[in-house]
């Protein structure tokens, strides 16, 4: 790694590190819940290593406990992860030129926080060279992903989550608000976020968390259309 790439790597690490506050309790909770469901420690760890996507793991676990058919479990859990296809597309303009081996690793380690933190920086600094963008992304990864394994393990072994009085359930939405609030820096971004909230409420009746995908697609269109509208107004005074 060159000195510039190295400094981009550590910058990514620093920028993503606030999210350890959420990764720690969340991954511990998964360890605890999975052990309560009767899984052995190595089984809990296998799931966290193979899937590395908390929300879908909780979904799969709950449905397996209810003895839902395998197809239903898979569809529901995969639907929760569908949003990551959008992350994957959004990363193409920035790190799509990286070697295949790196892209395989980027894909495996793609989680909400690494995506959001890196794309925010890439959008703010479009001149950042691709090699540095890749390094920055892996810096973000280092801040949160190893902790995901370690704390799932800790939760599974200790078998004790952080007590519910601390309301850490709510640390998850709060941390996501902290992720997107600073991104609302232009009218199209604000419109997209508004449509996103509205869509989530209006389509809440859809099964398998599909409201998320529908709301997100509508919000992207709304953002893009607002951007086109503003451009037209500038061109035609």
């Amino acid at each position, binding site marked *: 790694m060159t000195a510039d790439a190295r400094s981009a790597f550590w910058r990514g690490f620093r920028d993503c590190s*606030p999210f350890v506050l*959420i990764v720690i309790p969340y991954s511990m909770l998964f360890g605890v819940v999975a052990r309560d*469901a*009767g899984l052995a420690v190595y*089984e809990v760890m296998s*799931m966290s290593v*193979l*899937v590395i996507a908390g929300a879908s793991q909780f979904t*799969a*676990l709950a449905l397996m406990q209810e003895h839902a058919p395998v197809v239903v*479990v*898979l569809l529901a*859990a*995969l639907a929760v*992860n569908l949003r*990551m*296809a*959008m*992350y*994957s*597309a*959004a*990363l*193409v*303009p920035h*790190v799509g*030129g990286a070697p295949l081996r790196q892209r395989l690793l*980027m*894909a*495996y380690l793609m989680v*909400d926080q690494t995506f*959001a933190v890196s*794309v925010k920086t890439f959008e703010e600094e479009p001149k950042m060279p691709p090699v540095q963008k890749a390094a920055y992304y892996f810096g973000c990864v280092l801040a949160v992903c190893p902790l995901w394994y370690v704390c799932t393990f800790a939760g599974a072994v200790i078998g004790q989550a952080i007590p*519910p009085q601390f*309301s850490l*359930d*709510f*640390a*998850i*939405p*709060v941390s996501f*608000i*902290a*992720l997107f*609030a*600073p991104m609302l820096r232009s009218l*199209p*971004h604000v419109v*997209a*976020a508004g449509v*996103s909230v509205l869509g*989530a*409420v209006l389509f809440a009746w859809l099964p398998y968390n599909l*409201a998320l995908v529908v*709301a*997100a697609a509508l*919000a*992207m269109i709304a*953002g*893009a259309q607002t951007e086109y509208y503003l451009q037209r107004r500038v061109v035609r005074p």
Partner: protein
Amino acid sequence: MIERDIFWTVTVLLGIGTFLIRFSFLGLMGRRSLPPWALVHLRYVAVAVFPALITPLVLWPPATGGETDPARLLAAGAAFVIGVRFNVIGAIAAGMATLYAAQYLLG
């Protein structure tokens, strides 16, 4: 209890499926450049996904059995305001501090 063979089938297939979702565009598009209209839409992925992701958790929190909770609404509002004006750590701290304070005051 979860059946062992069901657990392993689900875990392996979910792992493969999740990886394929993540790899999809990054793997297939690679160096190819996307059309301008796609780039415009992709600029809004983050602000399109995250608000929809948290809206149900804020309005109908699982911890209260889905009942709307004023303390959590206040906390979300505080995190949002601080997030827009300051930074990530400030937003998380403000959100959780507001939640604890509101829970204490509202009983």
